[in-house]
């Protein structure tokens, strides 16, 4: 519930002003029935230009969810910034069901107070009381995403994921000697920051459950190592450099352990590493490939890829008993599974007729649905509200990121301005 005056101090982490988006969003398909909403440019009584157009960011967020249709600014008959100035019949005329209005006010301490209100055109009443956020000029985008989250939650009943971030890897420059960059950006691709840069490959970035730490694989001296790194400070720790594979790190839901893949005992097996005690525990024991572990949301199971049945398929490992059972049966192969936060579905990369697509499997009914029709899909990662899957694919000969909703209806691409993009990892909610 929003209180009348709500003050939020945004974690500024390492993110500074740059509003340049490296990844540009192209929406390719949306839901059948879109909810019409008008996001009116926010009123500002101060001088000069504001650092960001808050209303535009909110509008873009809502459109990107694939559930909303925005009333173009050019069609608006008026641009009210407080409810008293709103003529509801104007908005009914424009067939807008909801209106978001707001104000920006400069405070004496250099901060800005951003107030907003969501209005229901049919009932002619605010959906919620007026609320506001105080932010520094560099956090305007955070404020806008916060408002988008609130609007989304009020109108859909489920939590928004606009304030989240994505990790990804780019390979830039000469393709035969590229520079690899591990980057973090807002979920809309804005404010990219380079975390690590290397001439050797970087892959498999993953978030800790509180969003403060990341783990990734980076080659050094032509061998793969696993690192964990605190985002805010850049403090980094090498946690695995065994002989052979060191790969696929995945944080446990309680943040205490990492699942990872090592081949130090001959062939790829799933292990868990207790981060505090450094205790390593072998979880699988099979001569086949066992890799790509991912924890179930309750931490009781680990789903992973294994070719023990002849072709790569998804299996589930019970963490306590270490008992293994097969999960996927449809498709030539299924790899790199991730489970939705409610535990209901898994997404996998499914191979059929030589194509690799993101597939969704209902864990209760076993029903499988192919979500994408893009080319050479890999690395699916699910938004913390379970609504969307970000994945890597190949488009016009380049590695790009793309997003598909769990129901398969909403699709958009996030191509990069330069180089190939791959290995997306959607952050959890930030506390």
């Amino acid at each position, binding site marked *: 519930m929003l209180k009348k005056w709500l003050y939020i101090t945004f974690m500024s982490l*390492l993110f500074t002003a740059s509003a340049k988006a490296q990844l540009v969003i192209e929406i390719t398909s949306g839901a059948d029935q879109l909810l019409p909403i008008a996001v009116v440019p926010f009123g500002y009584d101060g001088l000069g230009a504001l650092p960001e157009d808050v209303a535009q960011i909110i509008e873009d967020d809502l459109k990107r969810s694939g559930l909303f249709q925005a009333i173009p600014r050019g069609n608006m008959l008026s641009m009210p910034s407080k409810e008293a100035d709103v003529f509801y019949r104007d908005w009914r005329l424009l067939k807008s069901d909801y209106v978001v209005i707001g104000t920006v006010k400069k405070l004496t301490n250099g901060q800005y107070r951003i107030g907003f209100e969501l209005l229901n055109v049919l009932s002619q009443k605010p959906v919620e009381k007026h609320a506001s956020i105080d932010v520094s000029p560099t956090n305007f985008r955070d404020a806008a995403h916060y408002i988008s989250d609130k609007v989304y939650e009020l109108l859909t009943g489920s939590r928004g994921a606009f304030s989240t971030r994505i990790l990804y890897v780019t390979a830039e420059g000469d393709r*035969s*000697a*590229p*520079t690899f960059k591990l980057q973090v950006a807002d979920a809309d691709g804005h404010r990219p920051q*380079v*975390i*690590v*840069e*290397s*001439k*050797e*490959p970087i*892959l*498999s970035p993953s978030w800790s459950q509180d969003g403060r730490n990341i783990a990734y694989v*980076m*080659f*050094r*001296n*032509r*061998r*793969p190592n696993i690192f964990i*790194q*605190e*985002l*805010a*400070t*850049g*403090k*980094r*720790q*090498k946690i695995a*450099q065994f*002989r*052979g*594979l060191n*790969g*696929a790190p995945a944080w446990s839901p309680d943040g205490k352990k990492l699942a990872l*893949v090592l*081949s130090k005992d001959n*062939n*790829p097996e799933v292990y868990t590493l207790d981060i505090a005690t450094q205790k390593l525990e072998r979880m699988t024991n099979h001569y086949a*490939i066992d*890799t*790509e572990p991912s924890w179930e949301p309750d931490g009781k199971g680990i789903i992973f*890829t294994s070719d023990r049945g002849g072709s*790569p398929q998804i299996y589930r490992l019970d963490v306590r008993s270490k008992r293994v059972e097969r999960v996927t049966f449809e498709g030539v*192969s299924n*790899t*790199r599974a991730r489970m939705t936060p409610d535990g209901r579905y898994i997404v996998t*990369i499914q191979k059929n007729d030589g194509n*690799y697509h993101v597939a969704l499997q209902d864990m209760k009914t076993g029903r499988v649905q192919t979500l994408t029709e893009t*080319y*050479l899909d*890999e*690395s699916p990662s699910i938004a913390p509200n379970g609504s969307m899957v970000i994945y890597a694919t*190949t488009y016009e*000969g380049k590695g790009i990121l793309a997003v598909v909703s769990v129901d398969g209806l909403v699709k958009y691409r996030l191509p990069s301005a330069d180089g190939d993009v*791959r*290995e997306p990892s959607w952050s959890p909610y930030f506390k």
Partner: protein
Amino acid sequence: MSVNKLGKFAVIGLSAAVIAGCSTTATDTDTSTTAEDATSTEQADTTASSDASFGAGEESAPTSVIVEDTASTEEVVDKMASLAGVATVFYFDFDKSIVRPESREALAKHAQYLVANPEARVTLEGHADERGTREYNMALGERRAKAVSRYLTIQGVAASQIESVSFGEEVPVAFSHDDNAWQLNRRVEVRYEK
């Protein structure tokens, strides 16, 4: 391993450790960007180098493809003369890790060389094409490197002379998205420690 070589290991290992130490312990509060390539760029200019903690030879440019051996000293050239013109890249079928019949002759020559020079060390670098998921391909690349490793050990090469490493699909040599490129990328590269 000669004393002379040990000395080289120690010196380069130390400098690498210093550089690595700087980057791993640096905690810059403005940004957490860490330049990672300092070590490898430096090492790219030295013909022989190794990070002490890995204990195996390496050449730095991670994406270069060895088609022919580039020997660094005359001594090495003499020793490796028996390998002149012998293939160092071996190809595999899709999703397979079986050494192809046409690879056997060249691999036998590598085995002979390694048996005759028990101090020689070799790294087998396995690679996969871009299809399929990245960590699975890491495992697949390793499986290929190990298939070659087994082929060598069966012919008498000591396991301690061989290290298998996988790059998965991360370091392709051909960049189009077709059968031809995929075939070139499904490979194991034989690299001698210099």
